């Protein structure tokens, strides 16, 4: 079975569970930016965990299936339309052969995950079908591309009920380098409101707000970073690393988001405001 791309929207990339285990070669894990939404898409579509999906930023994707297919969209309140007919949020959709399927513009959230039963069968690179924005993995699909869908191996599962959207502050654990900041800076970090700037992408959320002052001004030797690391460059404005972060960073990391909060951060649009709070243990 194949799926032909008619239009991609602002950004559509292949994503899966990523490629851990290659950091010593300078290769970052990448993977879906909102991991929970990615996992739900595969459960609902009846795919094994780790199957490749399309991560669609702000909707706009339009595709056509040559055979009957089963598709589902998760992550935002965007929905699939089948030959112009709207379906429900996270509805598992039986798509007739030859139908055109589009992803609507979300009103809430940023990244939607389109899973097709069978998964996208693009060739993996170092064991993963994720496109890393820093340059690794399959090429981005383009209009006219004919994408092969893999053989069906699973049964559609029951995903847990959709959790209500949480608007509260992003939860963090301080460290590894919170001791590089003044006590006032940590207090500011945990109290102030920051705004997501348009320079944000799947590498990092760049924030604007009160700058965080360092207690130490020496240079930190580069060290490994993780998804959710809140790195503070010399201008004092935090950057929250997302899935496509580099392997190492050269600025101190004041705190790290919990995995759940990193998923919520993945759905923040430019202009959104955000606060940080200490995660319960």
């Amino acid at each position: 079975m194949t799926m032909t791309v008619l239009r991609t929207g602002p950004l559509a990339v292949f994503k899966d569970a990523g490629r851990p285990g290659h950091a010593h070669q300078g290769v970052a894990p990448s993977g879906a930016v909102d991991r929970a939404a990615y996992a739900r898409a595969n459960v609902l579509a009846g795919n094994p965990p780790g199957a490749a999906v399309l991560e669609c930023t702000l909707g706009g994707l339009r595709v056509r299936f040559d055979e009957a297919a089963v598709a589902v969209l998760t992550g935002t309140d965007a929905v699939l339309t089948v030959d112009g007919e709207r379906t429900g949020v996270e509805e598992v959709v039986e798509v007739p052969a030859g139908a055109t399927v589009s992803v609507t513009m979300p009103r809430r959230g940023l990244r939607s995950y389109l899973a097709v039963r069978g998964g996208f069968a693009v060739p993996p690179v170092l064991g993963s079908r994720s496109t890393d924005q820093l340059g690794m993995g399959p090429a981005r699909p383009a209009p006219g591309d004919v994408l092969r869908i893999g053989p069906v191996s699973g049964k559609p599962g029951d995903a847990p009920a959709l959790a209500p959207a949480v608007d509260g502050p992003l939860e963090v654990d301080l460290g590894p380098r919170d001791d590089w900041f003044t006590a006032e800076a940590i207090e500011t970090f945990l109290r102030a409101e920051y705004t997501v700037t348009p320079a944000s992408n799947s590498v990092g959320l760049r924030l604007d707000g009160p700058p965080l002052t360092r207690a130490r001004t020496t240079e930190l030797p580069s060290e490994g970073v993780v998804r959710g690391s809140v790195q503070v460059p010399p201008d004092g404005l935090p950057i929250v690393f997302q899935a496509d972060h580099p392997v190492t960073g050269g600025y101190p990391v004041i705190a790290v988001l919990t995995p759940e909060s990193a998923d919520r951060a993945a759905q923040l649009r430019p202009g959104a405001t955000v606060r940080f709070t200490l995660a319960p243990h």
Partner: protein
Amino acid sequence: MTRFLRCGREAVLAEVDDLDAALALYAALRAAALPGVTDLVPAARTVLIRFDPAVTSPAMVREAAAALEPDGHGQAYAGSVEIPVVYDGPDLAEVAEHLRVTPDEVVARHTGTPWTVAFAGFAPGFGYLTGGHPSFDVPRRTTPRTRIPAGSVGLAGRFSGVYPSDSPGGWQLIGSTTERMWDLDRPEPALLLPGVRVTFKAVRR
């Protein structure tokens, strides 16, 4: 002495005194293959230990890592490679001037002392090489180049390195090699893995 720093719910950052200790800890962690550990990121003074929180926990990883006995300094030997280089880089003269030696002496110093891959970063297959001739400490270019061809051999600070792919960069370029730093057809695509000893050899074009 290894210090363990909190790094979220899916990783622990182990900090040691210097690069040799970091390489030794990295080698010990790699050999130990601790349950649930998914990735190791060696760096100048740290090793980031990433793990699957469904299998293990920060406390378990800290405890297991603390119980390891890394080999003594310099024992983390991970093989050796010789890289043939044509020393005709655009910054060779400038580097020579900075070090107050002739270009030939720069080549002699770059080839005369073996280097060690400290860690990878910047791009897939880019290894930061340390331990070369002690006189090497050169500033980065004030304006980075927008495109440096794959195979370019450069210097920055006390490091040397070889660009694995065409990319922008600010290192001082002293030569180039045809040896491939990154090849997806190899079991380990990167040639320069942490701990590998590297000797450069001057060749004619």
